[in-house]
């Protein structure tokens, strides 16, 4: 039981990261109906933003590794990723807005390759060690918890889940309560009608890319705090897993992306804990195939009937 709870905790911490990335897939799918295959690489850019900005922030502020340091680096990396995501949309996807979806999809794969190889060129191909923004340690659990006190919960796990929850709450607020969020939902339901209400599609689509990319950037920082070895190809696996999470939850559904991300994280942890790390990836991608076969709309998604 303790072993199971331990895997659950490990899985949720990893799943929080998948959830943050999955939101970007699902939001962009919502407004443009295409899978932005370059999204995983934005996650990598977030990690490298932290790699370069982190030490500078520590030096300038004189802070030692702490929550405060993380909270300073996080928004900088998010902003950098938001700008990168918006630039990619503006330069690569917007000119293809009226082209067949396949054209845009292939372009996204091209952008992804460009970021991965460009990343190797600029950042170097070998793994780098991520600067220490917070000193990770296992939390001492009160003995009154009995056998539960033997669980290992690390500071970085708490940080990851805490920040992920905060960002998810913020996103919910933006999408559910603000005028811009309403415009995003309207646009995803019917772009023509949204335009007729006065919505500037270009602006809302750019904002959607910005928001989704910022979340991926945050995920890049959080993942690197947990696993401080980063490289320009790190976005491939994380991106694919998060994509599976988005499909599992129901592409286009924000809640679905979060649920899918957490489920995939927990599933991975359980496979690693109870079976073997070797089976982790085959089982995750097996899930993708099963969903596509039996429930293509995902757990929480629903397919809208095609409009005529």
């Amino acid at each position: 039981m303790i072993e199971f709870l331990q895997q659950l905790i490990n899985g949720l911490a990893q799943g929080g990261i998948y959830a943050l990335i999955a939101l970007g897939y699902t939001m962009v799918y919502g407004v443009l109906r295409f899978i932005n295959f370059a999204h995983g690489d934005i996650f990598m850019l977030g990690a490298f933003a932290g790699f370069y900005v982190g030490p500078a922030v520590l030096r300038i502020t004189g802070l030692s590794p702490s929550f405060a340091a993380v909270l300073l680096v996080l928004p900088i990396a998010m902003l950098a990723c938001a700008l990168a995501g918006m630039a990619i949309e503006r330069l690569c996807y917007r000119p293809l807005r009226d082209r067949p979806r396949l054209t845009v999809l292939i372009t996204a794969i091209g952008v992804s390759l460009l970021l991965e190889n460009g990343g190797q060129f600029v950042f170097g191909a070998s793994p780098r060690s991520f600067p220490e923004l917070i000193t990770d340690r296992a939390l001492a659990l009160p003995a009154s918890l009995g056998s539960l006190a033997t669980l290992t919960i690390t500071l970085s796990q708490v940080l990851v889940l805490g920040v992920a929850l905060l960002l998810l709450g913020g996103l919910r607020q933006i999408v559910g309560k603000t005028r811009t969020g309403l415009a995003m939902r309207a646009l995803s339901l019917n772009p023509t009608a949204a335009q007729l209400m006065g919505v500037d599609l270009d602006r809302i689509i750019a904002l959607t890319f910005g928001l989704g990319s910022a979340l991926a950037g945050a995920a890049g920082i959080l993942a690197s705090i947990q696993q401080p070895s980063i490289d320009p190809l790190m976005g491939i696996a994380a991106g694919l897993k998060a994509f599976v999470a988005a499909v599992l939850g129901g592409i286009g559904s924000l809640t679905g992306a979060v649920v899918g991300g957490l489920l995939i994280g927990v599933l991975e942890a359980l496979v690693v804990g109870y079976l073997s790390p070797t089976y982790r990836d085959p089982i995750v991608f097996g899930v993708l195939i099963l969903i596509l076969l039996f429930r293509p709309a995902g757990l929480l998604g629903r397919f809208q009937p095609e409009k005529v």
Partner: protein
Amino acid sequence: MLTVTDLHVSYGVIKALCGVSFTVDAGQIVTLIGGNGAGKTTALRTISGLLRPVSGKIEFLGQDITRQPAHGIVALGLNHVPEGRMVFANLTVSENLAMGAYLLNDTAKTDANREYVFGIFPRLKERLRQTAGTLSGGEQQMLAIGRALMGEPKFLMLDEPSLGIAPRLVTTIFEKIVEISRDRGLPILLVEQNARLALEISSTAYVLESGHVAMHGPSSDLRRDPRLRATYLGG
């Protein structure tokens, strides 16, 4: 108020409009009638900036809006209720109305407009928390018109408000259209296949046939026109 001059619009090689011209003056209801595929929807979509014309000119309130983006045209007060209603199916009635006031961005005005819309279509008030997709066709049409009114339009274009709606409700909706135009002095460009109804409530009519204006004149004259009666009014 709205002047369309020699409008040509194509979908690739298909010519949908070939030199269409018409005018709508302040406070008027003008109708554009014609059979399926005549180019009525194309005309409205071009005016509201969803389609780019090959050539021609569209002027609204003395301003050339031919190449303006759709959201800019709405901002000028030219509102389009599209064919098939296009309500936001997964949003509530209340959120749909809020979207109508997207550019207004003024709580007091939005509230006042919402009250006005409820006065015209009390049913929307009863359905406020329902998602728009669960409404009947007629109720969706009311919502689509109500949503357009939320933005305080200076000019309204309606594309086949009678399409796919129970006959009983069609009469109600047409009465409301007249009421809205009268109350607010709102000029309306009404596209219809139901020529009989459209000619009844409009002052001027244009008949479109395969992308051309085949006839035009006061609606009362066209109602008596033998050729029009044979083709569009069932003799």
